[in-house]
Every structure is written in C-alpha cells, then in structure tokens.
C-alpha cells in the first residue's frame, strides 16, 4: 500500500460541488504533478464536511488545515507553499481554526465542538466511491458480525436495546418495527430505504448518501437478514444526481466484493438492492405512497392498516426505514445497543442530524446528541444570527412542523418536547428566521407547498389547503379581517382531523403554530394593514423623508410610472396612488431619504 506524507481532502458534497470544487480537485492533481510530488500527496474527494457555508472546503492532513471558500486560483499557492514547503496559507484558513499562529484542530472550533457524529461519521472523511476506504473504517464489520455470529432475533434485540427511533419524521421505534416485520409470515419480504427526502429545505439524507453510501447498503442487508428478506429497494429522488451516482457505484462495488448478492460471506444468506428513482412528488415520501410508486403507479397513500409490516410492496411484508435511521445501524451492531442508548435522553436516544439554514452564520449540516438545546445549536454551533440582526423564530419539521420562539431556545431537542410545543422533530430541517422574516409570509410559503403537493385523494386536504391558502393570500395583500384568523384555525383543525395521510394531517401546522406564537404579526396585517418585517409588498409604502431629501431628482428619473414629483433642490414626494411599489427609487437615493415601511 502506498504511503502518503500528506492528504488533501476536497469536499465533493452538493454544496461545494455547486461552487466548482471538482475543478479545484483537478487543479490540485495538476499542480501536485507539476511539482513532482504526486507520489507523496494523496488527493481525495469526500462527502460533505458540514460547514457548507464556507465552501468550497479543502482540508489538508496531517495538520488538519481547514481551507475555506477556496478558489481555483488559490490552489497553486496552497500546493507551492503548504504541500511543498510546509507553510500553510494562513490567509485562506478558516479563521476559527487559527489560534496565535497555531492551527487548532477542527474539533476545537465552535462548529464542531458540540457535535457527535454517528450517522455522519464517514462523511467528509472517506472517499465515498471507494469501498476499500469504507472497509478501512470498520465498514462491513457489522454485517460480518451479524451473519457469522448472530441470529436474526439477536440482531433485532440489539436494535431494540439501542432505543433508536425512526429519523424520517415519525419517530417510531426501529427495533419494534423490525420485530413486527420479522414476525409476519410470507414467502417473500422486502426492505425499503426511504430516500425521498421531501422537506423542501433540508439535505441530511442526501449528504449521507453522497458521503457514505455503503453504510446504508450495509444496514439494509443487516435488516434483510433480521426480517428474512432477500431484496431491497432504495427510493431516491431523481433530483439528487450525485447521490444516485454514488449509490450505483457503491452497489456495483459491493456486488464485486461479494457483500451483496448470493451467499454473502459464504453463508446461505443472499440479498440484493435495486435503486428506484422518485419523480418529484412530495407525498411519495409517505410510506404507502412510496410503495405505490415503486410498483409503477401514481404515488397516492393508502389507508392504514394494513401497515407495511403486514402488507407492503406487492402485498408482501415490507420494512421501510429512513436513510439516517439505517446509517446508525452498523455502529449500533459494532459497538452495541447499550453504547448508543447511553447517548441522548430518556425517550430520545442517540444523535440527530440537522440541516441548519436560513438566517444563520454557519449554514450547513450538523449532528448533535439528543437533548442538546436549540440555543446551543443555533448560537454555539450555528454561530448565531448574521449582520447583528435579532433572532425571531426557528422552524423545525418542515411543512409538517412549526415555529418556536426565543422563549423556547432552552428547550432540549427531543421528539416529545418539540411535539408538545406544537412543532416536531421532523426529518431534520432547521430554519432560523430573524426580524426581517415575516411569519405570515412563511406560513403562506409552507401552505402553498402542501397545497401544491396534496395528491388530491381526499377532499379535506385538497380543498381545505386551497381555502386556507386563499385566506392567507388575502391577508398578505392587506384584505384580511380578524374573522379570517378564526377561520384559519377552524379549517386547520378540520383538515388535521379528516385527512387520510400525514401530509394533510400535518399541513395546517405551520399556520397554526405561527397563529399561536406570532398572533401579533397576523393582527398587524389584518387590522393595521402593516407588515412589521417589511416583507409583504402590498402592505408596504415607499415614502421620502423630507428632512433627508436634497431634491436631486435621481429617484424621480428612476420611477417607471412617474409617481415621484417635485422641484429640484426642494423635497420630492411620492404619489401613493400611482406608486407600483417596484422599489427602484429606494436604492438610487444617494442620501438614503427613501424608506419602505
């Protein structure tokens, strides 16, 4: 095996790839060749490191130097200075990692210090397209242990002991689900991985598939052994091309190594996996809809029972779990269920991955032990709110979830505490909002999403979400009334009670939770006809502050509808009846005399 004195890890996650990290990787290869050190330096493409905000990210070992926002033009210098002469290019290092000239380890930085990586343990560490690297990090060790030393009952027992609950949103105990499916008698059973990641603002599952696809394959194979299935399906979004590609490579490699296919590890257990692509329907993340889609039909949910554990794919007992749920399994087997259960809280064991986004300094992917507080995640790991703005709310659970406010910041993150506050754990989206975010507008955004994605099978969901959206549209246009708020609540409750599947049953949540916690803001919209955050266009007015206006006439020349008039050198005025609120004048005023309120 070749020995390298230094390793360059280039992030190949979707975030960094979008800012050309693969060209940076090529450039590194070129430069290293130029200096004739290609035998000493290994260049590895990895999955997401988590700190996508600072992408494209490059880490150089053994120093652990964390280069952020690297440009192609920087590569020459990094190679010549750091790799050839051993002098890290401080200018490009992530500032948090520099401490009086010394490079701090990443684990000492605010972003990583409180994280604990189980599901993400290999992301940003190994080359996801190289099975040997996965194996070098204990990969397929759990599968070997299971197939050669454990009975299916023992495997299920271990998973039950871990206390692992589903990471796809529902939080159902995983071990129990495995046991129920194992107990169903049938000539054929299936294992399904739900990689349809529907939350429109989240990318946990995608990063796992891109950064560590073998962990999911290994876990599905273990599940197959535990429940008595020999065929698995991964249902992954077609919009995730890199994840799909890495899964294909991983499946091929696993087959070549005899880790998928017939007689795995020489035992008489056989298991194989097929990929099926989703086609852009959010409701297909719901398990029965997902299975209808695999079967080649419109992806509409079925009433439950029967549950998939009794009758799922092609009416056979089927185990369906989320990507992140699976990614925890190999470590649970290798290190034991008790080890996993020792992390987290009484009712929520282990860790959870979150996609931090919105008005937060460190946008990215984090994995934290359950029970950590929202404050720790948002302020310590996430680095707080940028531009000195004030925190307003954090949204978890995506379109099924709700918003929490500043007074909830010290709440521990657990399935049951979040639900009790009217939000939910969800699959891991965590969007932070500041004073410039309008909560009515956010609620409208989610409802527009669920209305669009309702499959239309049942009336409360199809018609109800449409009615709610119409009311919200009226409110943001300044035509709402106080009664509308009661109507929203009434409709929301009806939709929740009468819908067939989880989509309809949770669709009103973002509206109900903002109505509860931010009623003032709704009232400002319907009574005062104002949008306090300054977002809802129809409620804004552009005005010129007389004292500041120098009468330069720049704004008047900018206005497309001639709404601004005045005499040069004396204050100008905006005719509100003519103004179409295009905002063109605002940026043009050199004296900042025009305001939007």
């Amino acid at each position, binding site marked *: 095996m070749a020995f390298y004195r230094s390793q360059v890890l280039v992030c190949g996650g979707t975030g960094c790839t979008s800012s050309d990290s693969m060209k940076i990787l090529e450039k590194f290869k070129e430069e290293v060749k130029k200096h004739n050190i290609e035998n000493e330096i290994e260049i590895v493409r990895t999955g997401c490191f988590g700190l996508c905000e600072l*992408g494209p990210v490059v880490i150089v070992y053994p120093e652990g130097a964390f280069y952020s926002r690297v440009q192609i033009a920087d590569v020459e210098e990094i190679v010549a200075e750091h790799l050839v002469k051993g002098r890290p290019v401080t200018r490009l290092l992530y500032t948090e990692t520099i401490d009086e000239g010394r490079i701090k380890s990443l684990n000492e930085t605010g972003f990583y210090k409180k994280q604990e990586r189980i599901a993400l343990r290999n992301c940003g560490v190994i080359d996801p397209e190289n099975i040997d690297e996965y194996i070098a990090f204990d990969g397929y060790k759990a599968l070997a242990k299971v197939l050669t030393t454990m009975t299916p009952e023992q495997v299920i027992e271990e998973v039950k002991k871990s206390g692992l609950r589903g990471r796809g949103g529902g939080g159902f105990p995983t071990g129990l689900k495995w046991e129920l499916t194992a107990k169903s008698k049938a000539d054929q059973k299936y294992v399904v991985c739900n990689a349809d990641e529907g939350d429109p*603002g989240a990318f946990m599952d*995608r990063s796992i598939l891109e950064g560590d696809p073998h962990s999911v394959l290994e876990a599905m194979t273990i599940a197959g052994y535990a429940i008595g299935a020999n065929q698995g399906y991964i249902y992954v979004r077609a919009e995730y091309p890199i994840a799909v590609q890495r899964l294909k490579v991983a499946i091929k490699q696993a087959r070549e190594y005899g880790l998928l296919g017939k007689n795995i590890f020489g035992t008489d257990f056989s298991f194989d996996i097929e990929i099926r692509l*989703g086609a852009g329907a959010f409701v297909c993340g719901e398990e029965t809809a997902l299975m209808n889609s*695999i079967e080649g039909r419109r992806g509409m949910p079925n009433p439950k029972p029967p549950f998939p554990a009794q009758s799922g794919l092609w009416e056979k007992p089927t185990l369906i779990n989320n990507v992140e749920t699976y990614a925890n399994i190999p470590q649970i087997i290798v290190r034991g269920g008790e080890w996993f259960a020792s992390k987290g809280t009484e009712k929520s064991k282990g860790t959870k991955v979150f996609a931090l986004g919105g008005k937060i300094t460190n946008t990215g992917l984090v994995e934290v032990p359950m029970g950590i507080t929202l404050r720790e995640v948002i302020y310590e790991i996430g680095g707080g709110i940028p531009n000195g703005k004030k925190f307003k709310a954090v949204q978890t659970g995506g379109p099924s979830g709700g918003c929490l406010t500043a007074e909830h910041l010290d709440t521990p993150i657990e399935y049951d505490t979040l639900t009790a506050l009217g939000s939910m754990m969800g699959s891991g989206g965590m969007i932070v909002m500041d004073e410039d975010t309008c909560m009515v507008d956010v609620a409208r955004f989610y409802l527009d999403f669920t209305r669009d994605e309702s499959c239309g099978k049942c009336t409360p969901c199809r018609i109800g979400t449409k009615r709610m959206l119409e009311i919200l549209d009226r409110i943001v246009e300044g035509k709402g009334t106080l009664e509308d708020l009661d109507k929203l609540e009434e409709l929301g409750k009806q939709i929740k009670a009468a819908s067939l599947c989880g989509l309809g049953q949770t669709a009103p949540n973002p509206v109900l939770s903002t109505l509860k916690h931010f009623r003032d803001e709704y009232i400002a919209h319907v009574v005062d006809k104002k949008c306090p955050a300054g977002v809802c266009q129809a409620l804004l007015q552009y005005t010129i502050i007389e004292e500041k206006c120098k009468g330069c006439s720049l704004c008047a020349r900018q206005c497309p509808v001639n709404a601004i008039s005045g005499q040069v050198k004396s204050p100008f005025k905006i005719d509100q009846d003519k103004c179409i609120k295009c905002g063109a004048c605002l940026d043009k005023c050199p004296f900042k005399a025009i305001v939007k309120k």
Partner: protein
Amino acid sequence: MNQQNCCCCGGNHVDERLEKVMKVIEEHKTVKGGLIPVLHEIQDTYGYLPEDILKIVSKELDIPMAEIFGVASFYSYFSLEPKGEHIIRVCLGTACYVKGAQGLIDRLSKELNVEVGKTTEDGKFTLEATRCLGACGLAPVMVIGEKVYGRITPDDIPNILKEYQDK
C-alpha cells in the same frame, strides 16, 4: 453533443435516442413496476415525454395509454411538453425562500416575460421553481442548465441572462 448518425440505407437515419430507449423498454418488460424507470429514461433522453414514444411504451409494456398519462401527469419530474433550450431552476426551498428567492423568480419572470413552469415564446428559456438543491450555504440559489449561481440578488439577473441570450 455531436450526434452523427450513419446513413447506410438510403437516407434512413438510425435514431440513436430511439434505439437507446427501445433497449431500456426491452430490459424493463419483466421488471416489476418497470413503467416509471422507463419514463425516467425517456425524460432524460428527450427532455420530455413525446407522445409517439409513449405509444411504443404502451404497446411494448402492454399498459393502456390512459394509465401512462395518469402516471406521467402525477409526477412533476415528467413533462409532456418540450422544454426551452436553457432551463432556469430557482430554488424555492425554505432556506432560499427565507433569503429572498421569491425576488429572483419575480425578476426572472419579468425579464423573460414568462410564468413559472412555462417556456419563453422563442423557446430559449424555461423557468422552473425547485426544492432544496442541497446548496443552502449558497442561498439563494439558481441553476441554469448545470451551472449554479449562488448568493445572488435580483439585480444580478440581467447580466446573468445576457450570457445565454446572445448564444
């Protein structure tokens, strides 16, 4: 891509795309739930689902046209109409929305005089809204073809569009 078809039989072009699709149809005849994988292949090859090709699918897989249309229209990834030369996708995921992605859509819609989901009259651009592209660190994000534009404001749009307009 440069597609050079050989004309060996009196100008009778061999359609490479059709051949590829036929092969995939053949492979999926015995696959359970094979219709959707076949539709994916057609969508990727042609950029939409041409009716002629769907008729072949209907015959070969023995699935009625009505059912194929039912499935194709259910999923937003499939399109029954051809798309523009450049497809502009603006991320309307939550992280991008909170950072003002709606402003990008409004501006694009105005500049190109086209609604979301529609193609410009000259067939040059199709404007689409998508969900999280996994690049929230760059929010708000817009993609034209394969190229990703991150951290942009509505005012950057005219210049970006210029790169494509004269081509």
